[in-house]
């Protein structure tokens, strides 16, 4: 497979059906080739790109199920890719990937529409698991992301509050706290006497709030001015 091919032909009929189609976006070729080697067994890599334009173009042609997207990209960053692709095709799911743990970067790409976030030091097995999860429509919250989200929804905010969007329910907070403590969804379910499906519903609901609420900006605004 040649590196840097922005887009590849639509599915090869000879491919076994049911393999999840994955598109890789990362501007580090070393990392990209590593990912390809790890994921090639289980997933069908339909293309890869190293910048925003190449990614948008390639995703349009490759019709992937899941895009593994570097948060930091030349040409505008991962969120630009998500926004451009979702304008045409809101069905494409994104899993954000980054070495950076700056909360703003991560939250920004989640708010743009990514279904989850993992760090680049994640083990190959965990990464495959995260991709599967995103493909199934679930959200992937690492402990660190759960921490960021809890931080973002903390405290009181100035101005009108939409309880539907601007606050986490006690249950959602509990679920996020457990994820931040390092429990898997299954373990969270067992400990809180919920089904895994319910845990996933809570996490998806948190994701929705994070994407739709203006709270994050408000909180940041307040934090910047030391009001909180």
């Amino acid at each position, binding site marked *: 497979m040649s590196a840097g091919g922005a887009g590849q032909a639509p599915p090869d009929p000879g491919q076994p059906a049911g393999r999840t189609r994955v598109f890789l976006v990362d501007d580090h070729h070393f990392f990209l080739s590593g990912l390809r080697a790890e994921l090639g067994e289980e997933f069908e890599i339909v293309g890869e790109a190293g910048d925003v334009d190449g990614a948008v173009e390639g995703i349009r042609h490759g019709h992937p199920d899941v895009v593994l997207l570097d948060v930091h990209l030349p040409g505008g960053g991962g969120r630009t890719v998500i926004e451009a692709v979702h304008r045409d095709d809101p069905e494409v799911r994104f899993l954000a990937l980054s070495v950076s743990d700056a909360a703003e970067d991560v939250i920004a790409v989640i708010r743009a529409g990514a279904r989850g976030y993992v760090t680049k030091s994640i083990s190959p097995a965990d990464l495959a698991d995260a991709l599967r999860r995103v493909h199934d429509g679930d959200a992937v919250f690492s402990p660190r992301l759960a921490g960021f989200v809890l931080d973002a929804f903390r405290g009181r905010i100035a101005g009108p509050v939409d309880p539907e969007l601007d606050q986490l329910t006690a249950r959602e907070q509990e679920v996020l706290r457990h994820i931040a403590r*390092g429990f898997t969804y299954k373990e969270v379910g067992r400990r809180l006497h919920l089904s895994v499906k319910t845990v996933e519903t809570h996490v998806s609901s948190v994701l929705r709030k994070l994407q739709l609420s203006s709270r994050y900006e408000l909180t940041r605004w307040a934090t910047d001015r030391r009001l909180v």
Partner: protein
Amino acid sequence: MARRAGPLSEEGTIGKTSTPDAASDAPTTVARRRARMPAWSIPRSTEDRVVAGVAGGLGERFGIDPMLVRTAFVVLSMAAGAGIAIYLLAWGLTHEPQPGEVVVRRPLANQARPAIALGLIVFGLLLVLREARIWLGDSLVWPVALAGAGFAVLWSRSDSSERARWAAAGRRFPGNPLEAVFAGRISFARVAVGGLLVATGMGAFLGGNDALAALPTVLLAMAVTVTGLGLILGPWMVRLTRQLTDERRQRIRSEERAEVAAHLHDSVLHTLALIQRADAPPEVTTLARRQERELRNWLYGRPDGNGDERLGNAIEAMADRVEEHHQVAVDAVVVGDSPMDERAWAIVHACQEAAVNAAKHSGAAQVSVYVEVEPDAITAFVRDQGKGFDPADVPDDRRGIAESIRGRMRRHGGTATITSEPGDGTEVTLRMPLEGT
């Protein structure tokens, strides 16, 4: 001499009375001029000559239609012959072109034209207003107008190239804005001309109001006032300037830092992540993790400026220590933050004991630490997914550690709970109430 006859006869044709003394004086002036011609002296025109070629020369040099110049002279002549006087003065200041002299055309700068036009319009308007007796008095309006013109000259920045030079000067002298003003030759001329105009305006105002008689007294009073103001405001101004300098320096520094951060992010952090994913020896992986944590904290860390440490930093440092000594990965997540006090340190130390304990006995490769700061309490969870144990059947050494953690928390008014099941890992829950702070 032959040339002189021309202008005189032409002057006659226009119907102006000539001034013989000035005319007879001219040859020597011209001769002297030729000897040492100042750079600003303009050669009179030889081709476009109606009287003496003054209008032609001026027009040629400044890129104005000579007809306009002539009209201006004629119109001004109606004002008690002012035009003729100005013409003669201009003639005196210009010189006969030397053979082969090239007329340097220096059209008025694009910015100067509208400025001059605006000035003349304002001047005309003032005259009209004066005629219409909407007037505050000569001694007030003219000085103010003069000072206004000087102010405009002082603070108008002519063209973009000069502005760029100003900006460059501002970068070179991040301290004093005045240095930026005086940087550059054109700026200096501008400051000189503008300052002179303003000073003249002020002088005219004082003179026109009969205040010049008291000038020495006034100067003394002014000197005293300025000195007093300087004594009062001086330190403040110095501090303000220093503050501005500091701020600018800070901004430059943070910009540089952002650049460095972007670069490190793209290069070093990626390499460290790659090492952790590769099947490297455990010591190398641990080293890469530690370096990544350190770098990440430096790049995006919670501000620990002013030396006062925060709980978030302390927890990260604790995770770092445990990783260093115990070949285990410690994932620390901190929500909220608080300054360090005795109780916060108790939490950090208890977390460390729990993490070390997990690293030594659980057999797990990873320990998760989660700390949440709420208004009324700090809660911490230290968890491993190792082999766990049955609390009813605890080896003595473990009990000792559990007691140590509990005791530490209790001494500061907190609690510690340890839950474990064989085969299902261990979790230590620490809670430190914060009421009373």
